[in-house]
């Protein structure tokens, strides 16, 4: 159809949806809705991953983002029971400016991101890298050190989150304001 391959069709549709949903994330008032839209965006992006033969990554993506992170968001939003009418809104002018600035940024980006055409796809063994086996190999050989260090990162995040999240009982930190 129209001389486009099926992948090209898929790419087009997915991209369109992704952008649409992303915009909805920004422009819906109700936080809950924007969370949901963001989830949808993520699904589209996952679709893109599949198009790019990054199957495993697609799965992980769904699991981590849609599964974990967004749920966390949703949870917090519920906790603070935010909804459309509690949602504060920036002044219309501010939002307009934001839009304009974003447009300009896009413009310069388009200008900046030239020159990728001559990059040629590296052939041979294509579409195999996305498989768990290959990724695992790379991750645990070449990227072993980052992998280990990432644990420290997570640990730190863990400790931090607990420390912040937990209501402390003693009030003595009140009078030592600002020290």
């Amino acid at each position: 159809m129209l001389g486009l391959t099926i992948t090209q069709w898929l790419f087009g549709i997915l991209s369109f949806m992704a952008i649409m949903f992303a915009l909805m994330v920004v422009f819906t008032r109700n936080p809950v809705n924007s969370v949901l839209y963001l989830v949808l965006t993520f699904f589209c992006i996952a679709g893109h991953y599949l198009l790019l033969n990054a199957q495993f990554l697609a799965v992980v993506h769904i699991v981590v983002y849609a599964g974990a992170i967004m749920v966390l968001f949703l949870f917090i939003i519920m906790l603070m029971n935010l909804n459309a009418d509690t949602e504060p809104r920036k002044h219309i002018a501010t939002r307009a400016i934001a839009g304009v600035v974003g447009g300009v940024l896009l413009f310069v980006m388009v200008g900046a991101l030239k020159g990728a055409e001559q990059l040629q796809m590296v052939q041979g063994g294509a579409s195999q890298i996305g498989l768990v086996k290959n990724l695992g190999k790379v991750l645990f050989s070449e990227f072993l050190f980052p992998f280990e260090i990432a644990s420290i990162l997570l640990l730190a995040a863990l400790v931090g989150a607990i420390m912040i999240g937990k209501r402390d009982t003693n009030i003595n930190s009140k009078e030592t304001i600002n020290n």
Partner: protein
Amino acid sequence: MLNGIPINYYIMLSAVLFIIGVIGVMARRNAIIIFMCIELMLNAVNLLLVAFSTLHNDASGQVFVFFIMAVAAAEVAVGLAILSMVYRNFKTIDIDLLSRLKN
């Protein structure tokens, strides 16, 4: 050409998503939404990385995405913790109301 799609398209797509995220950060007052928009930006980057890794037929790009995810998760954890704490103390997460420190 990644199975028929020029790499530029991917770059543009992720650029657009990234910028939508930026716009979100600029246009919203709700800290959580802002945070979500930042996640959106990260995902745009992820997409770009995956596209490039496929282009170069090199797995390290996708591996990097894992790290980004990990970091994102960590950030979200800490971030939401801080947000909830702020909400506890300020009874709001409206960034325009959080401006005691200035000048």
